[in-house]
């Protein structure tokens, strides 16, 4: 049973235990990437969408599948190619000769977790089909509006190395993502662990898939709890100052948009929730700053240095009175 609000310490404890189990399950799926998993959960609870940009074979699909299984939702996967059509994602209407009517065949977008593999291989037309779904959690086909899952979550991947036959994501599309993450190679120790797991429990896991950690409706409940996290005015002012700093930096040609600003606040709240706090502190903002700003800002090279410079240019609100 899902409580309405975290009111008692027992409920808080129960929530933390659930989150811990979720972390453990995902860590088992993607070995040695605790920080990435923390960001993924942050993005999930903040109702954002995730863009994973990394080389092939680093566990992007595994992570998406594991997340879908852990939250107990339906997972769908779309492998993007240049000939992929928007209807391949959203669905299409077919004529039923028996009923003499058009029937809508739902596409993969109606899943809880949608993995869009190599999104930059799809044509801009197909990429645009995702705009409405990601921003408003609904799609419109044949003038008919269809509502998506309340916990609709997009994990898109793209390969930064191969550029032949790809279509870079437009800024409008990028702005609808909450974070851009890089998984990166695991350490030697974790790679050994990955190999051992593959030998020992491969067969067992194939037979018995990962069970759902969250009860039905629990994800939505967590997302509502995140929305209730407090943000004091000085933190919001700090956030706005940071946004202004991104717009004034000479090497940033596209500053943080208001949508990006809202997303940053939601992600900071989600991070505070994951840390077991009911209020946001500056560290929450700073913790998610890199993945948020890297996707919402238009920057030239040395993006990391620019982000550091921007963050260092704004004083953290400590004592303002």
């Amino acid at each position, binding site marked *: 049973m899902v409580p309405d609000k975290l009111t008692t310490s027992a409920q808080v404890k129960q929530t933390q235990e659930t989150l811990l189990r979720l972390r453990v399950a995902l860590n088992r799926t993607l070995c040695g990437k605790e920080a990435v998993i923390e960001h993924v959960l942050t993005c999930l609870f903040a109702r954002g969408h995730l863009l994973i940009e990394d080389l092939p074979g680093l566990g992007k699909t595994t992570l998406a599948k594991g997340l879908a299984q852990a939250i107990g939702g339906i997972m769908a996967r779309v492998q993007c190619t240049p000939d992929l059509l928007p209807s391949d994602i959203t669905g299409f209407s077919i004529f039923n000769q028996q009923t003499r009517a058009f029937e809508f065949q739902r596409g993969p977008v109606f899943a809880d977790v949608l993995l869009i593999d190599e999104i930059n291989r799809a044509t801009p037309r197909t990429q645009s089909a995702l705009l409405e779904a990601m921003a408003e959690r609904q799609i419109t086909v044949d003038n008919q509006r269809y509502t998506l899952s309340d916990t609709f979550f997009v994990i898109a991947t793209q390969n930064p190395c191969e550029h032949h036959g790809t279509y870079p994501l437009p800024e409008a599309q990028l702005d609808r993502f909450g974070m851009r993450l890089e998984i990166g190679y695991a350490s030697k120790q974790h790679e050994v662990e990955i190999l051992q797991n593959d030998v020992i429990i491969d067969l067992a896991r194939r037979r018995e898939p990962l069970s759902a950690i969250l009860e039905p409706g629990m994800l939505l409940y967590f997302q509502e709890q995140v929305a209730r996290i*407090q943000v004091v005015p*000085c933190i919001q002012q700090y956030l706005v100052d940071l946004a202004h700093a991104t717009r004034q930096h000479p090497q940033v040609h596209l500053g943080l948009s208001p949508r990006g600003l809202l997303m940053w606040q939601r992600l900071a709240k989600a991070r505070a929730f994951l840390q077991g706090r009911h209020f946001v*502190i500056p560290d929450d903002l*700073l913790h998610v700053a890199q993945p948020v700003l890297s996707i919402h800002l238009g920057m030239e090279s040395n993006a990391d240095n620019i982000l550091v410079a921007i963050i*260092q240019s704004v004083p*953290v609100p*400590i*004592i303002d009175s």
Partner: protein
Amino acid sequence: MSTKLLSYPGALWHLLPWLLTGFSWLICELTLQPLGSSWVSLWTVPASLLLICGILRWASHYSVPLRWCGSVRLQQALYVLCLAAPLLYSAAGIKFGWPVAPLERQLLRGLSLLLAVLLIRRQEQKRDRILGMLSFFIALFASALSKNPWSPILLSLYLTLALIWLICKFWQYSCEMATIQRARRRPWGVLSAFIALPLITLIVLTDIGRTIAYQMQGFIHSSGGTSGGHELALDGVGDGANSVSGKNASSTGFADEDIFMESQEDSLYDVMSEIYGEPRTGKEINKAIALRPQDVAFIKNHGVAPKSERASRTFQLQRSTPTRRYQLKSQPADALLYVEGLTPLHIRLATYAQFDGTQWQEEQPYYRSLSIQLKSDGWMMLSIPHWIQELSQPVTHEIKIGQYVSQRLPTINNLAGFRIGRVNQPNWFSWAQDGLLHMIRPLPSGNSIEQRTHLLRFSDLPVPQISKAPEKDIYRRIEVCHHNHGDWRVLARQWVTDLPEGWPQINTVIERLRSHAQLDPDFVLPDDCPDPIAHFLFQSHRGPDYLFAGSAVMMLRSLGYPARLISGFYARPEDYDLRSDQTPIHADDIHFWIEIRLPDFSWVTLEPTPGYYLLQPLPSFTERLAMLSKQSMQWLLTHRWLNGTGLLLSLLIWYFRIELRNLMASRYWKWRVESDPRRIVIATLRLLLQRAQWVGCPKPAHLSLACWFDESASATLLIPRELLVFRQLAECALYDSFPRIDIHQTRKLCEAALVSGSLKFWRSHPALHHNE
């Protein structure tokens, strides 16, 4: 002006405020520079540096931080220092007797310095506004005072730029507000009209060479003076030379200007009412107007008399009884002379050349003709040796005649020129004696003689300029009766033994004489004294000034130097009247001194009487610095125990400054009564941050508390558990809207954090050792 400027706030947009500031600063400098004093450039140097810093700051688009002006307290101290430095300089000048500029000049100097400092910090909007207002004030204030012909032009440019800036700013704002495209057309017509016309008009109509205050007289309030009577005075301030002061308002006013009323008392405007009484209006007054026949016919034809509604000056015949509160009466002078200018001053009235042993004979009228060159402004210039002009400093004095009415004019040594009102007849003047002016008729009371002279410093005189004169020279004659008191000629030779001839010997005689005897104005020589000088030098060792002067003349003559005795007035600096800016000279200011003749027949004044001083040229900046250091050293030595104790205490306080501050802050934290746990946590956090700052490892502004602790921990600083707990408490207090904190527990945690986060803990911060 480019389209870019009007379209978005680009680089030019940033340049405009800087240009405005630069123009106002330039106008200020032009106003302050004409004085020509060396110390003016002293202020120009830091102001220029600050301005350059401001330009660099602008040029680097704020990306280059100036570390030295980064500290807020340093900036605040700099602002205060900028304003206070010129005023402190004035105070020091008054204390140590330097010439100081008037207060408005010092204020202008301070404001210009402040302007330069603010320019550096102009990236903040708040300061931008202050900067604009300050530059506007300085530009107007300085222009009103300036006599430089470039000032009106610069002011025109300043106002033009300011207009451009304001119009662009307003247009930009209008663009943001306007939704109709038509409203966004650039206001080129308005810009042209508002910029070009005032600029051309102002430049064409400005009478270059005269001050704006002069141009505006009658339109703005002023204290009236416009002739620059005082060399340091600017228009309207300290310029009261043209005023005639009286006991009451009826006799007070300006000679050349309109009547000026400063007090609440009646002015000259009220004299008419005082004499004839106040206007009175009766209950019913029948007026009779004499009409011409044609006027009567007009009234008959039209039925009514023509009316006149035009304003006209009236004088009412119906008046009350005159109440004459004041009887107009003369205000006789209460002094012989009034000196306006630098003091002390020796004013010649008579010269004496021959001494028969008991009495001095006044010199005969001078035989050399007086060659005067009349200038257009009324000054009558005399020829003086070229070397005096080079070595000396020109000064101007104004001597107003009081009770002293004589054909023999009071004259100052090294006279280069003089002016008496509007007198333009050089043939009215001649030499009464060598260096003493004579006028064809006595100069009446109330008239002034302006005298332009050259001040010589004794030490600056070239050595070859003084030489011994032949014995037949009138100024070397010695008539003495030998007696048994002692020979002062021997004494003079003893005083100058082993000294080279010339100024060293003269200087020694004068200095020895000043210290040899004591000034006693009431001393009277005995009747049977055969040689007053010998009696004075060997027996009494005291006497009035004429004995000092007479002795000096005779001793110098005995050494071969031509000298003479002078009688006249001595203007004492102690008698200076601040209100009238004059030094009155009374009968008891009669004084005797001496003069030494140079080979070119010019005279150098010397003062052998103790307590009397010569007017020295204004010291240069380096001399003033040396004087200041010398006086400071004297003061330090005089109060050595007090200063030593103060220094020791200061050193101790400086050495233990951090501990003392920490002690006071900790005591304050402990003693303050606080019931809000959040405030307690914030106060504790503030104290912890202050401690870290005091020991030299302040928290970087961009780091959060957790990041700061993490960084410190990664730098091998072991953060105590109490501090980590306090960090969470602080985060709760700072960022939680409704923190649920227990006050007792909070106080305990805060106390524990303060104990753990002591000065000792922060001093062990690795960042400190890393810096070392």
